[in-house]
């Protein structure tokens, strides 16, 4: 490295190296290459996520019908204020919350139960079962929903044929305001493959010595599950909880396919997201729909933040801490 004494420099002072470009030199070139490789994602994110989000934020303060685009007008916070007195939105929000209360615990419990089953050494052909439970995820959701419409048919659906075989009356799953949420929840169980896999990974990472120690202490199956398994897999339980909660608030496709977007029966499948879709693409209230999208975003963000705040008290953080 070149050195030169300067007028005010001490004997150990060195001249700063010549400035180089941010992307020159070995590290810089590495950075440039890295950016080049991620550029497609960045461009995609900006074009297809960031800019549309920004546009929808702007639109949420307007009255905008794409069929009369030249009549767009700024309405301030009117769209947000309208939500407070929109009976359809209030109903859609209530429907979504009620459904979440059923489907979130049910899908978590079912996915965990399946994961425990396919992790058990007592189960012959575990890998086959793991594959079978994951397979439904490979079927497009619209196709599987159409199949489920048949399975849930009141007259000749497999579910009712099964109920009939054990002497139970037929249930009009998709046309009953009482049964439609359980029906959708059952449909949801069909797609728990991802959650099951994550639970399975969590279960396999629990140190076996903990179970050995618990057995030595006289813990039974339930005690080992309650005091060893659950705390040790609480991070994946937390992760799955967040994911299923977000998915439930964004619930749309199955409800749309089953009712052609009407929210039948009696508005019981008019979920928040379906209502948003109707406002945007059936009623063409793009401004109001954009406001709904942002409110949904904020609500889900808030719920996620609350869960993170509570995580310290029930999620195992490692090093013996919770």
């Amino acid at each position, binding site marked *: 490295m070149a050195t030169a004494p300067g007028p005010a420099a001490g004997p150990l002072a060195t001249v700063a190296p010549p400035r180089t470009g941010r992307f020159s030199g070995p590290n810089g070139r590495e950075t440039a290459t890295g950016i080049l490789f991620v550029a497609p994602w960045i461009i995609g994110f900006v074009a297809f996520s960031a800019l*549309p989000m920004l546009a929808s934020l702007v639109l949420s303060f307007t009255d905008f019908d794409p*069929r009369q685009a*030249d009549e767009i007008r700024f309405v301030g916070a009117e769209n947000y204020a309208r939500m407070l007195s929109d009976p359809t939105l209030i109903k859609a929000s209530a429907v979504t919350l009620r459904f979440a209360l059923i489907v979130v615990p049910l899908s978590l419990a079912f996915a965990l139960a399946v994961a425990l089953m396919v992790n058990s050494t007592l189960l012959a052909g575990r890998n086959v079962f793991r594959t079978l439970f994951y397979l439904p995820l490979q079927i497009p959701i619209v196709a599987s929903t159409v199949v489920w419409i*048949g399975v849930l*048919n009141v007259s000749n659906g497999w579910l009712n044929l099964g109920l009939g075989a054990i002497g139970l009356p037929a249930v009009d799953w998709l046309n009953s305001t009482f049964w439609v949420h359980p029906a959708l929840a059952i449909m949801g169980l069909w797609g728990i493959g991802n959650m099951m896999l994550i639970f399975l990974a969590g279960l396999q990472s629990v140190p076996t010595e903990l179970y050995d120690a618990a057995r030595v202490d006289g813990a039974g199956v339930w005690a080992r599950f309650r005091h060893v398994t659950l705390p040790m897999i609480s991070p994946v339980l937390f992760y799955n909880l967040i994911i299923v909660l977000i998915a439930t608030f964004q619930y749309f496709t199955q409800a749309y396919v089953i009712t052609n977007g009407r929210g039948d*029966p009696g508005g019981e499948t008019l979920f928040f997201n379906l209502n948003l879709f109707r406002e945007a693409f059936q009623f063409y209230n793009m401004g109001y729909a*954009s406001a709904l999208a942002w409110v949904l975003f904020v609500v889900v963000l808030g719920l996620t933040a609350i869960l993170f705040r509570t995580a310290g008290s029930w999620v195992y953080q490692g090093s013996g801490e919770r």
Partner: protein
Amino acid sequence: MVLILAACGSPGISPEASTSASQAASSASASAGEVAEIEWYVGLGTGTNPEQIPVQEAEVDAFNADHPNIHLTLTVVDSEQAEQDLATRMPTNPPDIIGPIGIRGLQGFGDNLLDLTDQIDAAGVDRGSIEDALWDVYQLDGKQIGIPMAVYPSFIYYNKSLFDEAGLAYPPHEVGEQYEGQDWTWETVRDLAMQLTVDANGNDATSADFNPASIEVWGLDAQFTNNDPRAWSTIFGGSGSIVADDGTTAQWPDNWRTGLQYFYDGMWTDHFIPTKAELDAIEPGGNSFQTGRIAMDVVHQWYTCCVRPAEGDPPVTDWDIAVLPTGPDGTITSKLHADTVGILDTTENPEAAFEVLNWIRQNPALLQAWGALPAITDQRGDFFAGLDETFAPLEIDWEVSTQMLEYPDVPSHEAFMPNFNEANAANGEFGSRLWTTPDIDLDAEIDAHLERLQGIFDEAS
């Protein structure tokens, strides 16, 4: 992305100014001998069936070969998505021509369509070749937004084999004709339909042993009506309007209450009309007549698209059509569908677009492919001859269709409502409730629905 496209639109230019400018541009380009680009958008009505698309493509190719000054492109969008797709294209790259589009579709895009009055006159279109009433269908706010192109009266398709099996006479083909000594009314149809409705044990719906939980054949349906209580009320109750004369008040005329009650009782009390769950069980796509398990079906002329005997062993081998009966108001009502083609007021080439429109509306190959009874009266003979060829050796009595054209629903069951799309969605939810829910007090339900509709109507103002 849709929202970005929308945000990047060009607000501030009025449609009129835009159209004037584009007309001037068109004239200029015409004089320069340039080729006008015209996009024809199909999906808002018929024209999306797999067998229709190649016919449309071939006709477009033929048009381009004959018209060097116009380059016509065809865009076909699935009818489930077409309305949303078109609406989101409007701010940035709208097509030039849309259609075939029905009366309901016009309610969504009527404001965006060009007034064709001057072009119709300039082109010398023979107004007398089409019934006056059909021209009125396409009058919107003083604009003539379309030329009547295709009409689809409704009538009864009936499965002759099921009548033969039950040992019953076929329904009347002539207006005024009696059925087995009875006036041909909806009450007569009820009696007939109950005799045709059969359970798994072979008991018909008039029998004390009839089991409604195991119905094999239903006497009557009005398929593809898609949860529309206005349509059901019109079929079984006659013409009416959901909007009072003041244009703002929601109403449900008495004859519509009677008609809807007939439909509801037909499903839930007398069991001769299938419920939604029953239909889902036999044909989730809704084409119930083709299952061979529906004896009579009130559908439109366009259903000739989908009753062609299939290859192999079709479930319906022998069918014909019958006239509709007299309704509770003492008149016959044949719920009418009609299609036209419109030009969006954003087109840059309105003259070329009209040339295309005028070609489409008179094109026999297209009308035949769409199962469209031509609005031009002189073309109807050829149309029915084409159908005879299609359905040979069956001999369908098309005279029934011609007779039913004289009894259209006025106003249309698809006519304007304030805040149309929201009101239409509310109607759909109401219809769905009737279709899926037994033991309801229909009058109370109608009143509650009217209250909701009034709120939706009021929002429009």
